[in-house]
């Protein structure tokens, strides 16, 4: 076990892992992470954080028009295009069969307003409505998802009692009929989901909903509204690991602010670390993430 075992001290000593491990496990300061992110380079994974102070009409209830505007601005920043339909046409083709993978967790589902905003732009890009599916449960028996040529992955970020966080990476667990088969070692190898034939190479966009993130879970439901807050944001990117890692940094900063001390995710979100270091799905290294921040900046936490 000695050589492969990852410990706190090895993370601190090992430069190649220190950046990622510091970000995900050791609660590196947000300032350090931000400095690393701001050093823009073209080979970095771009992640767009957009926030709107007035987006919410209630808990997890965004204003549809403002949400559409947020999504559009994020897409333009992510793609570098000037026109929103051009931006979407760069992501989707008219002949695509599109599965929009959402999350229906009772206490914090993907808002229907976001589902519709994505669908609208997919249709603006030329997709036929009959070729667009929006679903979480039951996708293993769904014709659109089983025959999809494109996927868009979207869910709210929340802490999770076993995997550390409910992440974009984890959101594809419904592509297998027995999700508990990936629960071992606190869901360490969730990134293998992204190698499934029904998934691999198909994800065109990842949207992590940060409107009312859950930063701490309690009880068997792992939920209390007390531990959500109005962050009013979306994190958008092509690299799911980079988007998840950025979201975790925000959650950790919120936990530190709320509890007044470092309060690591319990258990750590090992699956995001390993999605980078073991499965090479993307990067969780803040020095390899270009964070673009748009909109409301107050209490940004990153």
């Amino acid at each position: 076990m000695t050589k492969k075992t990852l410990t706190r001290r090895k993370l601190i000593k090992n430069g190649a892992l220190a950046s990622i491990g510091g970000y995900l496990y050791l609660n590196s300061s947000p300032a350090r992470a931000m400095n690393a992110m701001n050093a823009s380079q073209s080979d970095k994974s771009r992640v767009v954080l957009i926030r709107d102070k007035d987006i919410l009409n209630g808990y997890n209830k965004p204003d549809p028009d403002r949400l559409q505007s947020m999504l559009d601005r994020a897409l333009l920043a992510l793609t570098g295009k000037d026109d929103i339909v051009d931006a979407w046409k760069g992501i989707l083709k008219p002949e695509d069969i599109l599965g929009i993978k959402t999350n229906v967790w009772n206490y914090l589902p993907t808002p229907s307003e976001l589902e519709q905003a994505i669908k609208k732009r997919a249709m603006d890009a030329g997709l036929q409505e009959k070729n667009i599916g929006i679903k979480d449960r039951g996708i293993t028996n769904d014709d659109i998802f089983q025959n999809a040529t494109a996927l868009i992955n979207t869910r709210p970020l929340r802490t999770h009692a076993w995997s550390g966080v409910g992440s974009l990476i984890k959101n594809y667990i419904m592509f297998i009929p027995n999700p508990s088969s990936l629960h071992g070692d606190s869901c360490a190898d969730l990134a293998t989901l992204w190698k499934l034939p029904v998934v691999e190479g198909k994800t065109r966009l990842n949207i992590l909903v940060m409107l009312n993130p859950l930063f701490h879970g309690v009880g068997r439901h792992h939920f209390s509204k007390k531990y959500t807050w109005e962050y009013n944001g979306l994190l958008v990117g092509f690299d799911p690991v980079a988007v998840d890692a950025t979201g975790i940094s925000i959650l950790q900063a919120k936990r530190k602010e709320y509890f007044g001390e470092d309060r690591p995710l319990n258990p750590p979100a090992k699956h995001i670390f390993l999605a980078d270091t073991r499965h090479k799905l993307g990067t969780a290294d803040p020095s390899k993430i270009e964070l673009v921040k748009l909109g409301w900046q107050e209490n940004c936490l990153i």
Partner: protein
Amino acid sequence: MNVSAQDLNALLPDEINGYKPSGKDTYYNQENLFNYINGGAELFISYNFDKVISRTYTLKGETKIVAEIFDMVEAKNAFGVFSHDRESLDTTYGQGSEIYPDAIIFWKDRYYISILASGETNTSKTSIHDLAAGIDKLITTEGKLPAIIAHVPRKDLVPESIFYFHHYVWLNAFYYIAGENILNIDDNTDAVLAKYGKPSSRYYLLLAEYKTQENADKAYRSFINNYAPELGSNKAIQTEDGKWMGFSQHCKILVGVFNAPAKEQVTGLLEKIIK
């Protein structure tokens, strides 16, 4: 050993403030708990959960209330699950409770109880409290805390932070130590984490008691080899981040102190446990 299990449905009142059961009670065990709470099931399974009853109470015009009683087989497991959420030393219900605007959780004997309203109204708030009190009364026995907790020194302890576990996944609950099970923690190990000092200068104690001396010896060697080879001849060392740590073995118990601002905090805790 604790008292034998009571019938779970006998621990739930038939009526609370006009709220009555809606539909049939549902039961889950280790085999099908995933169907009920998906990945959340693993937390309970890691504490040797046996079964749970779930009952939904409804009242016309009011938000519904879901009450669940988890039979954790032993009191130490009920306490262990509860210790994940403990932020205070509240004992309003059972042997320890946490109270939220829309929920109450508590533990008593071998049972972990969760009561959750799906919204907040005056009636639902009153009713979740009355329901908790009713269940508390119907569970007539108390359970013992894990014996290892008696070894936790009290000076500078954050008392509500005591966290009990016997699955390695929870090793990093307060402070990232390792991604793998370098302490060989399993169902035959009783482990505790606790916080000391002020938030700005927090340090952490880990105690792990093994079933046999041989197991403790192996775990000690594994930790030293993987985490701190230089500790073999030192009581405490300064780590790369400038903090102090120590690790020692006393018969079947391993003791670790992490993240201490000063060497004396490490040696002080280690010496107290030796005594």
